[in-house]
């Protein structure tokens, strides 16, 4: 799809379509909604500078998601260099207000989901996050990562198999 109309209209169209995907991907990699928001903001500023050279909205979508993914992984690597104690103190997401046993189980599940995702190798995790949370098709993930659709399927399969083995080994609350 090629771009028509003013720069403002084009940018808004791309933003409306891509931001929800980008922020979900960033959130699942960083596990922090504020950091995810910042990274998406940074990615869209980069896109503003590159708008004239990115030919259409579809390419723009792939480009922005790729930038967000890279920024998120870089952020995680930077955080990884900090101590785990600092990370928990400063970057732990806010807890929901729900109380009771369900709330506790959900909290535990969220921690386990994040832990399970972080245990996956980076190349598998990124594919799974884009598929499960970004709701991108295999073809779109391939376009974002610059790999073939078959390769994406293989990675998604391996990631899910690893997760299945992880689930087999523990008592996890699945609503």
């Amino acid at each position, binding site marked *: 799809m090629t771009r028509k109309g003013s720069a403002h209209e084009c*940018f808004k169209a791309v*933003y409306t379509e891509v*931001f929800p995907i980008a922020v979900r991907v960033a959130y699942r990699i960083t596990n922090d909604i504020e950091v995810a928001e910042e990274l*998406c903001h940074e990615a869209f500023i980069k896109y*503003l500078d590159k708008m004239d050279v990115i030919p259409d909205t579809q390419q723009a979508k792939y480009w922005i998601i790729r930038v967000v993914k890279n920024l998120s992984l870089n952020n995680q690597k930077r955080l990884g260099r900090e101590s785990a104690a600092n990370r928990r103190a400063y970057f732990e997401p806010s807890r929901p207000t729900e109380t009771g046993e369900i709330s506790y189980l959900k909290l535990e599940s*969220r921690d386990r989901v994040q832990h399970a995702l972080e245990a996956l190798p980076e190349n598998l995790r990124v594919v799974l996050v884009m598929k*499960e949370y970004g709701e991108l098709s295999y073809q779109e993930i391939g376009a974002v990562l610059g790999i073939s659709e078959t390769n994406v399927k293989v990675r998604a399969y391996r990631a899910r198999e690893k*997760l299945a083995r992880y*689930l087999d080994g523990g008592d996890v609350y*699945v609503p």
Partner: protein
Amino acid sequence: MSPEDLRLWAYLDNELSELEERQFTEQLQRDAMLRNRYERLCSVRGFLQSDDQPDFDEPMQRTWHRLSLRNLENRPVPWWRRPVPVPLPAMAAAVVLLVLASVAFTQRGDTPRATADHRSEPFSSSFELSAHVGESEQVLQRLTGAGASDEVTIRLPESRTFEFVGQPVIVPSGQKQ
């Protein structure tokens, strides 16, 4: 990864055609082992979706507001993409000058050459004439006889060595002709 695994995931991802989906559903009902695997994979998906997603609408609006503060229509353009206001006559004159300069440059290095076959044509003093060594006497006669040349210069390649035959003669500059 077996083809059945691929189909199983394609079924979960809603990537099968309507017919394939119907066939696979029937197969699931018949095959207990396949159903077990399907339920196991469903639990993976359920696990991944088990935690509450935060509200993404607010960050989306906030980021849009921050981005809107930048003037999208008048965002800075790099210097190499800025239009340069040059009047058309000046541009045309520059093009003509450029063409003339290039023509003059290409013709400067071209010295006209002639071979012994072009002896009858008139030529200027800077004209080069190529002839076999055995014909040199004839060429000199023709040149001097026609009055076409006052001076004949023979250039010898510097890379080669020549032997003098006979004694060198000193000719005063006034008697050069």
